[in-house]
Every structure is written in structure tokens, then in C-alpha cells.
């Protein structure tokens, strides 16, 4: 089916909708949501790269393009999707990644997915298709509606295609592993974070701190001397990103929390097991602690918590922000067709 045909069919579907529609990619992140509401609106067949100019550091692809395919195409030209969104179950589409808005282990250094979205083609609840943003990095024409789609969970419309900034793959990468308690590892990453070192990922799990260093030969060699430790296995980064460690197993009866905190904030007093990424800014916790208690402790430290293992367990916005979110939702989807109950943060 051509782009024109696909868009015509989906516009018709949306325009004719009398009830809610649920936008479906490949369902790899379905577990994040609550009950199914509305008819399925499948988009995963709308796939493939539309335009890729390596010298522009920009790729434009249809929403149903799998992340694996996108990564492969970029790798062929020595480039990467720097935000490195997770591929749960080894699966996932570009559209799904944008809807959920999660970024990989390199986020503090390479930017989040929202940072690299330059433009989107968006189908709104009015049955209209718009281009917001564009294919260039610097662009301040009009409100930044493209970036707002990242993490909007498809509630503002269907992202039909998106343009993303990509980055050259570093010439050299090295992973090192250091034995460290949680407290020592935290102090180390906070201290290292203040220095201009080519660190591009950190993860503390099971009493070990893993660091990724990226850059030129000379730069990485120097940084290896500074940070010390043993040479480690680079596969840790995709394993952590895609939740393939036993730590992330959600069938244990323990709740898995995704906790976002200022990098140097102390650990909230929650009994459980921890995994710490992003130089301290992202902390995962497996615990039996009471959900509201977890949220309150984290909020008191200036952070927010998402009960990742619970359907619709997202971190919440306050009532006032919620009001404006609903108004924004109304501006793009006045009939409330898309992804009902998924406006993020509404508890």
C-alpha cells in the first residue's frame, strides 16, 4: 500500500469513528497500559524508511518501522539512534517508541528520544494530517508539537512518520566494570559526572558498577586510565535497555518501579533491590512497599515514580497540569477518540 493509500484509509477510519480507537504497533509495550478500550487501529504495516541522509544526521521513517530495522540501516552508515529506545521482547516500532517516550542507557549524554525528534507527520482526531517540525535540527517555527508527541502515548493523534536526529557511532567504545556497593557507586558516578569524561552510560547492578566510555582511541584510552576497573562486556547495555536481566522479571510478585531523581539525590528509604542507570538519574527498584508510600518518598526527593510492572502505573502529574493536559488533548482530539484513558500521568 502506498503512503497516499495508507493515509487515505486511516483518515477515513478516523473520520468515520463513532467510538474510541486504540492505536496498535507491535504491542511490545502493551503491558504498560490498563484495559483495552475501543477498536484496534493497526499501524505496524505502515513501515519503512522514507528518507535517510547520513550527512544530514537525519532519518525519516514511517511509524510502523521496527526499531531493529532502523538501527540496522543506521549501523550500515556508521550511525546510531542516540536515544536508543528499549526493544522489549526484542520488538517495537518507531511509533511505539515515540508514544511511550522511553530512552536507553545513554540518555544523559546523548539526549532523550524527545531531544532527537525533529518533526512528525500527525493525524489528529479531526481526521487531518499535519506536518509539525521538520528535518532540520534548528527550527523554531510554530509551537513544538512534534516533540510533545514523545511520551503522549498516542493520545494526541497518530504519528504517521517521524524525522529523527541521529549521531555518528563513536569510533571506539569500551565497557569497564568496577566492584562497588550502591553507595560507593553512586558517589563515584556523581563525582565522575562533574568531570568532562567521555562516559556515555552507567549501570550499577548486583554490586557492580558498569561504565561505558565512547570517543576516539586516544580519548577512551585516557578515560580508561582515569576510571580504572576491569574491562567488561558491552552487551550489558542492550540487555539493561531491553530489560533482559532477571532483575526486570515482573513475574516475581515484586513490583518493579522506575524512579526518576536528581542525580545526586539520596536513595528513598524503600526496602528492595536496586538497579541504577543514567549516572544516578534513573533508579529501578523491586519492592513490596506500598505504592503510594513509594510515590510520596520519591516526590519528597524531587523525583517521580512509575510502577512499571502495574498496568497504567505511570508517574502522575498534579491536578493543575492535568487540567491543561486535557485541554491540549481536546485541541488535537476533540472527540476523545485516540487511546482513551492513556493521557499520561492522570493516575
Amino acid at each position, binding site marked *: 500500500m502506498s503512503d497516499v493509500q495508507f493515509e487515505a484509509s486511516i483518515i477515513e477510519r478516523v473520520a468515520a469513528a463513532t467510538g474510541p480507537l486504540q492505536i496498535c504497533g507491535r504491542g511490545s509495550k502493551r503491558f504498560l497500559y490498563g484495559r483495552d478500550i475501543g477498536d484496534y487501529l493497526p499501524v505496524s504495516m505502515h513501515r519503512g524508511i522514507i528518507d535517510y541522509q547520513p550527512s*544530514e544526521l537525519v532519518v525519516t521513517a514511517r511509524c510502523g518501522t521496527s526499531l531493529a530495522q532502523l538501527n540496522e540501516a543506521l549501523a550500515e552508515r556508521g550511525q546510531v539512534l542516540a536515544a536508543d529506545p528499549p526493544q522489549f521482547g526484542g520488538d517495537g516500532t518507531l511509533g511505539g517508541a515515540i508514544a511511550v*517516550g522511553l530512552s536507553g542507557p545513554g540518555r544523559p549524554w546523548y539526549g532523550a528520544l524527545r531531544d532527537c525528534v525533529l518533526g512528525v507527520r500527525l493525524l489528529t482526531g479531526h481526521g487531518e494530517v499535519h506536518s509539525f517540525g521538520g528535518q532540520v535540527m*534548528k527550527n*523554531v517555527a510554530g509551537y513544538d508539537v512534534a516533540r510533545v508527541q514523545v511520551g503522549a502515548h498516542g493520545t494526541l493523534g497518530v504519528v504517521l512518520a517521524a524525522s529523527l536526529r541521529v549521531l555518528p557511532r563513536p*569510533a571506539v567504545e569500551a565497557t569497564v566494570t568496577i566492584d562497588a556497593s550502591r553507595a560507593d557507586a553512586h558517589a563515584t558516578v556523581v563525582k565522575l559526572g562533574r568531570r568532562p569524561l567521555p562516559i556515555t552510560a552507567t549501570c550499577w547492578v548486583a554490586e557492580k558498577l558498569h561504565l561505558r566510555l565512547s570517543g576516539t582511541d*586516544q580519548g577512551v584510552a585516557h578515560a580508561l586510565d582515569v576510571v580504572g576497573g576491569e574491562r567488561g562486556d558491552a552487551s550489558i547495555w542492550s540487555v539493561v535497555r531491553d530489560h533482559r536481566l532477571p532483575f526486570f522479571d515482573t513475574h516475581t510478585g515484586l513490583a518493579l518501579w522506575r524512579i526518576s531523581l536528581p*542525580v545526586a539525590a539520596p536513595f528513598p528509604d524503600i526496602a528492595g533491590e536496586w538497579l541504577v542507570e543514567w549516572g544516578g538519574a534513573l533508579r529501578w527498584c523491586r519492592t513490596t512497599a506500598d505504592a503510594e508510600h513509594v510515590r510520596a518518598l520519591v516526590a519528597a526527593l524531587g523525583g517521580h515514580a512509575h510502577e512499571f510492572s502495574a498496568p497504567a502505573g505511570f508517574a502522575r502529574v498534579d491536578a493543575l497540569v492535568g487540567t*491543561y493536559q486535557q485541554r491540549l488533548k*481536546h485541541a488535537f482530539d476533540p472527540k476523545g477518540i485516540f487511546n482513551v484513558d492513556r493521557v499520561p500521568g492522570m493516575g
Partner: protein
Amino acid sequence: MNALERARPALQKVLSAGSLIIDPIAKRPYESDGLTAIREQPGLVALPASVTELKAVLAVCRAFDVPVVPRGAGTGLSGGARPQKDGVLLGLSRLNRIIAVDPDNRVAVVQPGVRNLAISEAAAPHGLFYAPDPSSQIACSIGGNVAENSGGVHCLKYGLTVNNVLGLRVLTIDGEELVLGGATLDAPGFDLLALMNGSEGMLGIVTEVTVRLLPIPAVKSVLLASFASLESAADAVSAIIAAGIVPAGLEMMDQVATGAAEAFVQVGYPLDAAAILLCELDGEAADVAGQRLRVEAVLNAAGAVEVRVAANAAEGDRMWYGRKAAFPAVGRLAPDYYCMDGTIPRAKLASVLRAIADLSAETGLGVANVFHAGDGNLHPLILYDANSPGQLDAAVSMGERVLALCVAAGGTVTGEHGVGVEKLDAMCGQFDAPTLTRFHAVKSAFDPRGLLNPGKAIPTLARCAELGGMHVHGGALPFPDIERL
């Protein structure tokens, strides 16, 4: 008695004497921002000294239906802070407190009137800096940077304002305070932070900004390459990126600009080059040394006539000094210049620069190009003499054609200066009516009565229809029920 006159006693009541400017002479400095060609005497100027006073001003304006035009340091280049004669010009320059610099969390929390450079200065003792550095950074305020999503010479590596702001406190016109993000790397809910950046003060008034701080690079290295043609310089830009290098800055100046800069500040620029590139690399010493070798090789392979590597920081600063002085230097070539700001894909640099040169030949107006080549962000400076009849109009008309070239090349009408009032017409060419309607709906979601900075950033459909830029499909105007004047 108009709304503003009715509101005046209430404003006098909530503001101390020095915080409300009524005298026409004293209001004059507020008639324009950095786009001085567009002026208007503001009805009243309010300069609240605290967030409490700011809230009170908004409450009065809301009660009396008085438009509010926010203003930072007034350095904006698109007329985003152009006042209204029946409105309040809300100056935020007195909210200039650095609330906190938190080196371990690598954030600074500041009020909107804090100058961009002051943040980096406050962070420097901790070995940290705030990355976005618009050329006006010595004077421009962080609140204005958020409003315009300002860029600078280091965007290529470090991103724009939106990529470096982690949190905002925003007052809506209804006086409600939205707390968006904070010191964390993400925030729950819709990314309203992204929406606020670049919204030109039309959705709310920023009262507090949390910015991300980065470690100051250990080493900077500057290279200057000269080229015999604009095309080869432009191709070298793409070649550097294609080689997998993301420099901290990658700037181009054409011969007119280098000549002007050299005459002004004598930094040793090659005057026979058709264009020069300035490339800055930063990071750890070893990393930078490795990158520098690769950049030199790429520049030579791309046909550079000469590649100079700054031997030390002082020489690097001197190379930059000419670039930073380029705008005032070009100002000496003609009585006036009109600074444009469009972005195009890098691959189109050579062809668009050529087309701009053709326009220059056609109109007889000189053009100097000094710009952020790595980002494809053009700043053609169109030279004219406002005292010569017709020249301002000719410059503006040529500017519109330059922006049309940018859109046709797959780019945008503004890379970093914002739309303000300057580019309202150009917006009609970039966006169709339904998309503009969605933008207006975003505005209404935050400010349904349209009191905040009315008439900026997004053109009305009527305006576009008048211009003839409306996308008419099959002979039918979109939204036939909307009245067009």
C-alpha cells in the same frame, strides 16, 4: 476610557512607584526589541520586582482584559517583544536572582531575568557551564531564551535551549502556576516543557527555570580553513559530519563577512578566500587531539586552500573574535542591515548560498553570510540604507524570498530567532491553514482569551488569505466558515 486606562489605577496599586512606567519618554526604550525597525509605544510598562508583583499584574490585566507582552532583555531579533499601545509591556528583567547552583546535581535554578552568560559564570567555579550561547549571551535573559528556544554557536553538539532546560515554573494568564519538570531528566505527563520552549510568551510567563549544567571541556581546539569557493566550503561542512565528527561549533563566513571582520578587528583572516570555516572541537585533551587529526584530513580532502590550527587558547579566541565581531563589522559596510535566519539541510548549503548571491545581484543589495554552517542555519545579512527611498522595502522583500528558498530546500523560516512579528507572513508559506488552526488551538488551550502576547508567532488565517499564501485545494478554501478579512 479604554481597558488599559481603567486598569491603570489597579496596576499603580499593586506595583511600587518605580515598577510602573507611565511617562512616554521613559517608555521609549521599550518600544522595540532587537528588531528595531518595528516599533510601538507600549501603553504601560510594568517591571515587577517579585513573583508576587508579577502575579498581581497578571491578575489586573486579566480582570480588565488588557493584553500582556512579556519581555526579557529585549535582545530578540524577530519582534517577539514588540509592545502594544493598548497593552502592558511586562519586563521581567528585575526577576534576576540565581536561586541555586547545585553542582552535584549539575543544575542551576534561576529566575527568568538572569542573563544567559551569568549562569555559566556562576557555574564556572564548580567546573560547569550552561551550553546554549546565543550571540547576545552577555545581555539576553534565560526567560527570553526559553521563549525563543534560542540557539547559538554550539548547538550542533549541545542542542538548543529546549534540550538544556529541565524544569520550568510558568504562570498562566489565569494566575495558575504550572510546575513542569525539575532537576530530573524526564517528567511525567505530556512534554509541556517542550511546548513552552519557543512559545514566545504566548502560553504563559516563565517565573523560574531549571537548567542542566555540563562539565567545562578540558580542552578546546579551533581550526580555520579557507576555501576558494562557497561550494567547496559548504561541501566540507557535510564531509566533516559524514566523517562521524560532531564539532562543538562549525561556522562559515563568506568573503564579504571576513573582509568586514578583518577590517574591523584585524584577526588575520585570509582575505582572498571565498569562504572560511571555523571549526571548534572540545572535550578531553586526548579525544580532541584525535578528532583534530581527522578534521584536518577531511578539510584537506575537501579542497581547503589552507588549514590553520590554533596553537593555543589565545589564538583560538582570536579566530573566534572575528566571527563574534562579524555582525557589528558588517554594520560598517552599509548604514543598515537586515539579519535573516532560516535553516536548510546541510546538503543544500551550496545551492541556497548561490541562489542568495543571485538575489543579491538581481536586487543590487549586498549580502554578507555569517552563519552556523554545521546546523545549516543561515544568517544572510542584507545590506541597505534606510534613508534611501525604497531600500528597506527592497531588503524586506529580498528577505522574504530568502526564506522562501529555505522552505523550498526543505528547511524552515526560522532556525533560532523566532517568528515574533517579523516572520508571520513567512509562516503562511511554511504551514497550511489547518496546521495554523491547530497552533491556534494550542494557544487557546492555555490562553483562551488571547491576552498573552497577542498577534505573535502564529499568523491568523485572515492574514495568510490576504497574502494569497493560503493553500487552496480544489478551489475550496479550507474552513469556509471562518471569516477572512
